[in-house]
């Protein structure tokens, strides 16, 4: 865990706000796109962020090792790196780590040591856990217990890249123009209540679940308490990470379809539930009763993604912007329409999604089998 508070927040304020810019795109057929497309789109929305955080999630970028967990780590010191590598070697079989390729950029300063590792959990240590649960526990251990080390990406055939800086600069720093992904999500940060640091940029992730977020989660305290009881520990000094953990808990561990995950986070209003037919009324009442602590209150537009699936969701009364567009097999999501038009001048359809109604994009079966040969894990 990194204690940024002492260095950057002498008054120990701990309020949590965000207001930012979002772009995402995904091909249903698994066609891949180089990172300069999301970079161009984010550059167009430059003014939505203020240079204190930018990042990208890219799916399908490590096709040569689709079965290995790709860990992206940032280290404050060489000692933190040595301690983390010792820990990784205890729990995983791995190829040697390598430095994450970067190119110098004047807009990106104070970079930590950036390394990535392609890992396979040591099966004799699983003790009945799934590989995914084993990885989540190891990630939580590193982020909580190893001083100056931080795992910012831990999924298969995907990766998160983020930094303090303007998003387009972050993308060029990480050479994202050299990666090909079937799904990109991107974010520019305008931190209003917590200090900027490299780990605090979006996307937030655990395993291959990522989230980018414009808004603020007013229910953060309630969400965080509930998630801690489920084994997720908030270490990133901002509200958005609860969404990533909630998605992992609901979709992966509890097996809810993504439509239902959205209805937990942004449930229908009670006045609408009262108008529903009996079966739906029972369903949505049950969801609100069981998962009340995972209701995300406050203004938000988010894009969540994991292997083969992307979903955009706005809060129920749309207090943050979200535009969707479609061209052939590609769905685009952004805070504004202009960046979508800039990267794809010919669109079949543009629309403003209704608050609380998710826009869901899925890889078709053939593309899914190719990008993620292990398929979706079904637990229990």
């Amino acid at each position, binding site marked *: 865990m990194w204690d940024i508070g002492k260095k950057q927040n002498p008054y120990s304020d701990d309020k949590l706000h965000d207001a930012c810019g979002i772009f995402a795109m995904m091909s249903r057929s698994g066609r891949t796109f180089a990172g300069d497309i999301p970079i161009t789109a984010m550059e167009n929305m430059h*003014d939505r962020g203020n240079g204190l955080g930018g990042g990208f999630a890219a799916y399908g970028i490590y096709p040569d090792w689709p079965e290995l967990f790709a860990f992206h780590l940032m280290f404050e010191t060489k000692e933190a790196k040595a301690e983390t590598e010792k820990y990784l070697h205890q729990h995983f079989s791995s190829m040697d780590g390598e430095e994450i390729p970067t190119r110098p950029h004047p807009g990106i300063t104070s970079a930590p040591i950036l390394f990535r590792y392609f890992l396979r959990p040591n099966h004799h240590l699983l003790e009945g856990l799934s590989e995914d649960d084993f990885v989540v526990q190891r990630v939580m251990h590193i982020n909580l217990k190893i001083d100056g080390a931080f795992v910012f990406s831990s999924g298969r055939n995907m990766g998160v890249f983020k930094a303090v800086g303007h998003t387009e600069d972050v993308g060029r720093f990480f050479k994202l123009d050299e990666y090909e992904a079937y799904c990109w999500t991107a974010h520019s940060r305008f931190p209003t209540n917590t200090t900027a640091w490299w780990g605090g940029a979006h996307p937030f992730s655990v395993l291959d679940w990522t989230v980018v977020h414009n808004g603020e989660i007013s229910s953060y305290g309630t969400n965080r308490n509930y998630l801690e009881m489920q084994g997720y520990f908030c270490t990133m000094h901002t509200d958005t990470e609860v969404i990533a953990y909630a998605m992992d808990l609901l979709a992966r561990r509890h097996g809810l379809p993504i439509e239902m995950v959205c209805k937990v986070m942004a449930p229908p209003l009670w006045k609408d539930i009262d108008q529903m037919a009996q079966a739906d009324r029972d369903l949505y009442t049950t969801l609100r009763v069981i998962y009340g602590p995972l209701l995300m209150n406050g203004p938000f537009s988010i894009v969540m993604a994991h292997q083969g699936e992307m979903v955009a969701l706005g809060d129920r009364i749309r207090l943050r912007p979200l535009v969707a567009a479609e061209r052939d097999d590609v769905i685009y999501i952004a805070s504004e329409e202009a960046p979508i038009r*800039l990267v794809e001048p010919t669109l079949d359809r543009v629309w*403003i999604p209704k608050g609380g109604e998710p826009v869901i994009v899925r890889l078709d079966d053939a593309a899914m089998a190719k990008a993620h040969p292990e398929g979706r894990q079904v637990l229990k």
Partner: protein
Amino acid sequence: MTWEFASPGAFAMAGPTGKITYQPDGRAVVDARGIYYRQLNEQLRQLVKTGAKEIDVINVYGQRYLGTSIPEHVKLRIYGTPGNDMAFAMHGPEIEVFGNAQDGLGNTMDEGEVIVHGSAGDVLAMSMRGGSLWVKGNVGYRCGIHMKEYGDKVPLVVIGGSCQDFFGEYMAGGSVVLLGLGLAAGETHKAAFMGTGMHAGRIFVRGTVDPGQVGKEVGLTEPDAAELEQIRAAVRRYVELFGGDEAEIMATPFVKMYPKSLRPYGRLYAY
């Protein structure tokens, strides 16, 4: 020793501006591709100052505040997707957009006209106090929020398609006409919480409005004869701008949304 301070205008011009070409009729065409909004807006102001009456702006991708601080009756044609807060506090120009407008169009607009040959985003006409907005297609959330009027200064918003929730929220004046032309036969407007907090002004909706769709501060009635004439005049102008059939549009009855009270919260804080 003398000091030379750059004038504010010079400071604002300190980046690349759009390439200008001229049409045979003398009209200036500004290529906005890749031009930052501050430089683009300053360039438009300078063009108007030097006598331009009509300017086409092409390749617009999200530049904000177009039309702001140009206190002249000039004509701007925008090709592309203008950015948020177009016509913010605008006083004078006529803007025609060939594309969709983003959020905040007509924010605190004072005088002039904006015509959008497409759709518009959220909070259209927020705090608008004069002039008129014409949108061919649909609009997003909270359009008409806190529009106002004073004396003979009454803003007018005419929307061809439908709207999303909180339409006319906290409305304090002005006139809005919602035509619902994109709706299929028998389809109704989907918006909820229409007119929540409304305490002045008027909204005319073509088609039906369910009492469950409007805020508790809103009453529903039929427009009177004088109001129907206002609606007819708006429809006539809409048809001139975007096409359609006036008689056909007017054949469907309108509902008037009006505030039941001038001070819906008057007793909330004063007891």
